[in-house]
């Protein structure tokens, strides 16, 4: 049940989204009845979004350790050392429900929130990646959401001056009522400046700086992110607004729960915060996100084992007449909480003044472990609330939810009237013609070029972007060194719907493979787990299986999970979303001049396929386009094979054997080869003449999405060494042919080819012979066409 459905006569705790047993838990921890303000504080802090009360036991199973890990889960962002006194901070987070209600502000504040998580650690944000998922691109509602979200991501990121260098844009009917907006940010810091979000030292001052506090975003975490949408809410009637609430928890719609972003204020906040850290003026720093002042005070105090006395009258406000509970849980954006030694207050004020950002001492650190809220001054003020910090955070309620697999294993998705096939109205759609299938896939909304989107993002500010959006993983050089960071974010929702363990493990495999194929060593994994209502056993089972898959894959690849975020209740009247474990990976390339790019190199280079296809088309883009067979399953994942493929790619790069390297994923081998052609010869495009040995059906060989495969090219003289290296890693390797000409020619040879294919009833003939220009045309125009955007 959602907030709006609850009748007003219900007790306050229920209207705030707390259950009866949870109220009992609050009484136990306080040893008395909570008052209304305390109840409001618990309601945000014990929300799913802040407390992870459903997912915490699952997340505890993930591997988090590693020699280079400087800060792991529990901090604002994971931090991993990259040598030379430098470290990288990175994290991915969701802003799904705010974006569904108000796409521009929802997406904008999603960017703002994740950036604050990065610079709170002392890191300068250097890149953003956005992972966006929507319903049918042909629907008016989707188009409105896509447009607003993209403008929001760009509007915020462009203004703060952090480049948006990559991401994902995926369309699937399951996201129609509940789009996903996940944003990943990466920052760079000197390790000595690592700053913790803790409040040590009783007697230290609690300083709030940044924007003023208003009524925007009140209870965003508890109301928006921790409940599902109802019919009425999911209609545009949301946008009608609501009167300002007067007493605790009173509200008419979720409209005022959406935060409003001010990227200019954030830019000033970044500069002021980093200057404060650089000059050693703060003992601890925490951004104000979900849960506002309540969350920032209790989390920092709990981490240091301290308490705080806070005077609400000292909080700078943008609205008159705010009640205590509103000030405490407001999610007004662009605010920071600093813990400052009294003798440094003047210096902190000077820095904030110079950056034009309001700053106020709102309290003091104590040794009693309680968050004490006062009005009317720290000394003589009237007590409003008093709650142990740990009761709000580390000792928050934990639920053991029921998990149950679906009664009957889901079948492969039926031919979809919605997504991919529809946009490709160019070539004749005969499924007996592999070339026509390839063109249809290249022009489909999930594979076509995202240029129309990323051209709205400043991807080069900062002048570190070696590879921006559009072609594989993002690459950012680190000034003053030979090094580069390589980042990718991926999620396989289609396989996840069939098998959530496999979907999560494949997401990790793909994201890390995208990084390894450039020659970089993945450093760690951040994740954003987007799932349905955890009180439904099937949804909770999906979450549990996905976390298990995430853990298994990370252990197999020896990678720590350094942080992340859980977004549950992603449901609407249209249904629940496909399980979407969005994985973010950052890797380190020691010498940026060795970077391997996905496009084929020079004519005459030899093309090789490392790894091999297995059966299973379910969950593939081909299946979405053509309709899979009912008995078909997804392809299998062998994690030790995956590890070997990635190790091979890195070693081949280090030995200078690769002219190009491209991962095989969405659309299968044929799309990987087409992309390597289109992006080849330094971006101008080049053909290739290739023969693919085929043991399975042509559809599987050409369009199947078996993991653990890469397409590489090399100078002819290096080919034998490369083949040998692959065999040393225990990998199947096949020489496919050579780069050159202006056509992509792919023939299948062997048992799976020609007559055999037709005998088995496959609908795909076994040769592709297309001009590279035709590939480019289909790929370049597909997305604009699907979204109905004009060319410019």
């Amino acid at each position, binding site marked *: 049940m959602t907030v709006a459905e609850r009748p007003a006569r219900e007790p306050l705790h229920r209207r705030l989204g707390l259950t009866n047993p949870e109220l009992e838990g609050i009484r136990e921890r306080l040893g008395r009845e909570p008052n209304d303000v305390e109840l409001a504080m618990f309601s945000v802090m014990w929300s799913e979004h802040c407390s992870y009360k459903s997912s915490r036991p699952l997340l505890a199973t993930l591997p988090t350790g590693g020699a280079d890990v400087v800060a792991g889960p529990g901090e604002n962002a994971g931090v991993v050392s990259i040598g030379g006194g430098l470290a990288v901070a990175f994290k991915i987070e969701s802003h799904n429900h705010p974006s569904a209600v108000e796409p521009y502000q929802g997406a904008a504040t999603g960017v703002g929130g994740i950036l604050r998580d990065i610079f709170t650690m002392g890191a300068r944000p250097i890149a953003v990646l956005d992972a966006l998922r929507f319903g049918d691109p042909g629907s008016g509602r989707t188009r409105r959401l896509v447009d607003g979200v993209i403008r929001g991501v760009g509007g915020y990121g*462009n*203004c703060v001056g952090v480049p948006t260098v990559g991401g994902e844009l995926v369309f699937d009917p399951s996201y129609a009522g509940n789009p996903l907006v996940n944003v990943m940010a990466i920052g760079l810091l000197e390790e000595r400046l690592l700053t913790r979000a803790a409040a040590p030292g009783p007697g230290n001052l609690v300083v709030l700086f940044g924007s003023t506090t208003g009524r925007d975003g009140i209870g965003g975490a508890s109301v928006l992110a921790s409940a599902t949408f109802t019919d009425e809410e999911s209609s545009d009637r949301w946008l009608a607004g609501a009167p300002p609430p007067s007493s605790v928890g009173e509200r008419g719609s979720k409209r005022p729960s959406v935060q409003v972003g001010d*990227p*200019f204020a954030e830019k000033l906040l970044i500069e002021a915060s980093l200057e404060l850290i650089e000059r050693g003026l703060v003992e601890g720093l925490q951004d104000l996100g979900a849960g506002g002042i309540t969350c920032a005070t209790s989390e920092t105090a709990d981490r240091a084992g301290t308490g705080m006395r806070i005077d609400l009258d000292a909080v700078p406000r943008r609205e008159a007449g705010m009640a205590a509970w509103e000030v405490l849980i407001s999610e007004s954006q662009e605010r920071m909480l600093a813990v400052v030694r009294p003798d440094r207050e003047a210096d902190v004020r000077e820095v904030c003044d110079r*950056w*034009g950002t309001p700053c106020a001492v709102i309290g003091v650190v104590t040794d009693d472990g309680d968050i004490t809220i006062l009005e009317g001054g720290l000394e003589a003020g009237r007590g409003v609330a008093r709650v142990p910090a740990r009761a709000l955070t580390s000792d928050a309620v934990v639920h053991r939810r029921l998990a149950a697999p679906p009664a009957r294993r889901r079948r492969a998705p039926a031919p979809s009237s919605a997504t991919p096939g529809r946009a490709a109205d160019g070539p004749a759609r005969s499924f007996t013609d592999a070339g026509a299938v390839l063109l249809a896939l290249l022009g489909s909304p999930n594979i076509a070029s995202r240029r129309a989107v990323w051209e709205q*993002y400043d991807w080069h500010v900062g*002048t570190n972007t*070696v590879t921006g959006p559009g072609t594989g993983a993002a690459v950012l050089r680190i000034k003053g060194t030979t090094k580069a960071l390589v980042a990718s974010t991926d999620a396989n929702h289609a396989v996840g719907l069939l098998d959530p363990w496999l979907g999560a493990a494949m997401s990790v495999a793909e994201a890390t493979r995208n990084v390894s194929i450039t020659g970089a060593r993945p450093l760690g994994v951040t994740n954003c787990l987007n799932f349905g209502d955890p009180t439904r056993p099937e949804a909770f089972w999906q979450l549990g299986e996905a976390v298990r898959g995430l853990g298994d894959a990370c252990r197999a690849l020896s990678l720590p999970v350094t942080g992340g975020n859980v977004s549950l209740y992603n449901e609407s009247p249209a249904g629940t979303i496909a399980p979407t474990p969005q994985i973010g990976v950052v890797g380190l390339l020691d010498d*940026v001049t060795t970077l391997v790019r996905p496009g084929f190199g020079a004519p005459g280079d030899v093309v090789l396929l490392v790894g091999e296809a297995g059966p299973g088309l379910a969950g593939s883009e081909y299946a979405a386009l053509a309709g899979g067979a009912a008995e078909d399953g997804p392809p299998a994942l062998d994690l030790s094979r995956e590890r070997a493929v990635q190790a091979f790619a890195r070693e081949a790069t280090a030995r200078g054997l690769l002219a190009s390297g491209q991962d095989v994923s969405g659309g299968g081998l044929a799309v990987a080869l087409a992309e390597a052609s289109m992006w080849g010869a330094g971006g101008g495009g080049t053909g290739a003449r290739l023969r693919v040995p085929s043991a399975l059906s042509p559809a599987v060989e050409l369009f199947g999405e078996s993991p653990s495969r890469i397409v590489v090219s090399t100078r002819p003289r290096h080919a034998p060494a490369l083949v040998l290296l692959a065999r040393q890693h225990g990998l199947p390797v096949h020489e496919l042919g050579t780069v050159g000409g202006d056509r992509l020619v792919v023939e299948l040879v062997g048992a799976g080819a020609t007559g055999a294919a037709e005998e088995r009833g496959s609908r795909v003939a076994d040769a592709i012979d297309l001009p590279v220009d035709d590939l480019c045309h289909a790929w370049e125009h597909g997305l604009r066409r699907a979204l109905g955007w004009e060319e410019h």
Partner: protein
Amino acid sequence: MSVRIGVVVFPGSNRDGDTLHALRLAGAEPARLWHESASLDGVAAIVLPGGFAFGDYLRAGAIARFSPVMRAVSAFAAEGGLVLGICNGFQVLTEAGLVPGALTRNRGLRFVAREVAIVPERLDSPFTRQIDDRRPLRVPVAHGEGCWFADPETVDALERDGQVLFRYAHDDGTVAAGEEDRANPNGSVRAVAGVSNARGNVAGLMPHPEAAVEALLGSDDGLAIIRSLVESTRERVAGRAAVAAAAR
């Protein structure tokens, strides 16, 4: 001899670091100038960098032009000092009336960030003299309000007087056909990408030469523009020193 070139930092500037980096690569000694400073700290030339000064609230550059430093920049320009405004810096210069025309919303009404080709109109200006020939330069743009506009009579006069410095072009170097040509990323009148004042010492351009100074990042074509500024400044400083020496 190294030359000190000032990079003005407004609240919301976000290309100041990139501009400093590019100026260093071009052999200059750059220094940040805070917007509240009324003095120019003895710099020999000035760059107004890209970004969103004061959030571009109201209108890009509309508030920044009132910063104390702009009074000093205007005086510096009036004395013949070299001033280059890039992107948001160009917007500030037009708002301050230091270069002709106005910058309005992009024709497509969307922010646009892409690599474009531009061609210089003249190679004898302080900002273009190091460009070796009229090949198109590959440089990125990133702006929402970059559509340069002036009335036809004004544009005629600017063209006649050699105040148009750059135009958007196709990859083969032919100038974009007009406002609707895809090679013109924002719909600027007659594909104008950069202009100077009548005296030729103050210039503004929408593309980012400072973001195209290393082949590793895709293009180093912008370095010729940055180098032009640095060399012109160096000569100016040397010329003044010679005049001063002669006077002694």
